[in-house]
C-alpha cells in the first residue's frame, strides 16, 4: 500500500466545518465519485446494471439516495455514482467491472469538492447562491446550476434542512467563500 496522504479540497488534513446559529457548512471529504455513460446500443443493459446498483435509474434532474452507492443524473445517458471513499476508493474500477462494455466509466473523485449545508437557514442561503427553486425541491432533486460563476450540482437530501453542493474542486476556496458570506448575510 502506498503512503501518500490525501489533502482535502480546501487544503487541510481534515475537512473544514463552519458553524453558524442557523446553519452548519461542512466540507465532505468522504466521497468517491465516478461517472457512468451508457455506450450506444447498450443503454438498456446499462440501465439494468444501474438499477441493480442503486435500486432505480436516476431520472433527469434526480438523484437516487441509495446506500452505499448513490447516484444522480448528469446528462442524457450519463450519471454520477458516489460512495463512501473509505470503502470505495477504487469505485471507478469496480464500476468498470460491473458495467463492462455497456458503459464508459470515468473516475471523478478528484474533480469535485463537496459541501453539506444543514440547518433551518439553508433555503435562505441557497436563494443567495443560485437560481434553483430551493423551496420547491424535494428529497432526491438534483440540479446542476451556477454558483459564483461555478458549475455546481445541488442535491436535496432526505433531511429537509440539508442540501449537498458539489463544485469544481480547484475552486473549492472560492465556493466556500461564497457559502460563508451567504451564511453571514442571512444569519
Amino acid at each position, binding site marked *: 500500500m502506498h503512503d501518500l496522504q490525501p489533502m482535502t479540497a480546501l487544503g487541510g488534513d481534515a475537512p473544514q466545518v463552519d458553524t453558524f446559529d442557523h446553519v452548519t457548512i461542512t466540507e465532505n471529504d468522504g466521497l468517491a465519485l465516478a461517472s457512468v455513460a451508457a455506450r450506444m446500443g447498450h443503454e438498456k443493459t446499462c440501465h439494468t446494471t444501474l438499477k441493480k446498483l442503486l435500486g432505480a435509474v436516476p431520472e*433527469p*434532474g434526480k438523484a437516487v439516495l441509495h446506500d452505499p452507492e448513490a447516484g444522480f443524473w*448528469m446528462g442524457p445517458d450519463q450519471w454520477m455514482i458516489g460512495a463512501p471513499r473509505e470503502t470505495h476508493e477504487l469505485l471507478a474500477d469496480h464500476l468498470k467491472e460491473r458495467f463492462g462494455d455497456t458503459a464508459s466509466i470515468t473516475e471523478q473523485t478528484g474533480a469535485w469538492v463537496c459541501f453539506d449545508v444543514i440547518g433551518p437557514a439553508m433555503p435562505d442561503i441557497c436563494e443567495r447562491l443560485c*437560481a434553483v427553486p430551493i423551496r420547491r425541491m424535494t428529497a432526491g432533486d438534483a*440540479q446542476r*446550476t*451556477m454558483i459564483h460563476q461555478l458549475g455546481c450540482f445541488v442535491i436535496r437530501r432526505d433531511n429537509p434542512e440539508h442540501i449537498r453542493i458539489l463544485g469544481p474542486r480547484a475552486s473549492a476556496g472560492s465556493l466556500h467563500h461564497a457559502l460563508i458570506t451567504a451564511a453571514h448575510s442571512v444569519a
Partner: protein
Amino acid sequence: MIIDHPLLGPRDAAEFTYLGDAKLIDRPDWQSETAAKDFYEYGYLRDNPAGWHQELWFHEAGDRSWLVVTRNTVTHEISKVEMARDVARARGRSK
C-alpha cells in the same frame, strides 16, 4: 430568458452558451464537387431573420446538451426546444 429544456424543464438562459443558426448542423459533404462553395456558405452566410429562428444553445452549466431552440428574434418568444442530437438525426446526420 428561460429555456424550457426538454429533459430538465425551465432553466435560465444564463446557464447556456449560444452558438447561432441551427443550420450549422447541416455540415456539407467534404467530397462533393461543390464542397468549397458549400463550406463557404455553410460557414459564412446566414438568413438572420427578424422573426422565428432555429438556433443552437449549449447547456454549459447544466447537462451539457446542445439544444435547438426555436425563438423569435423580435419578441424573444420561444416556441420549441429540442435536443440537438434528435434534430441532427432527423436531418439525416449519423456517423
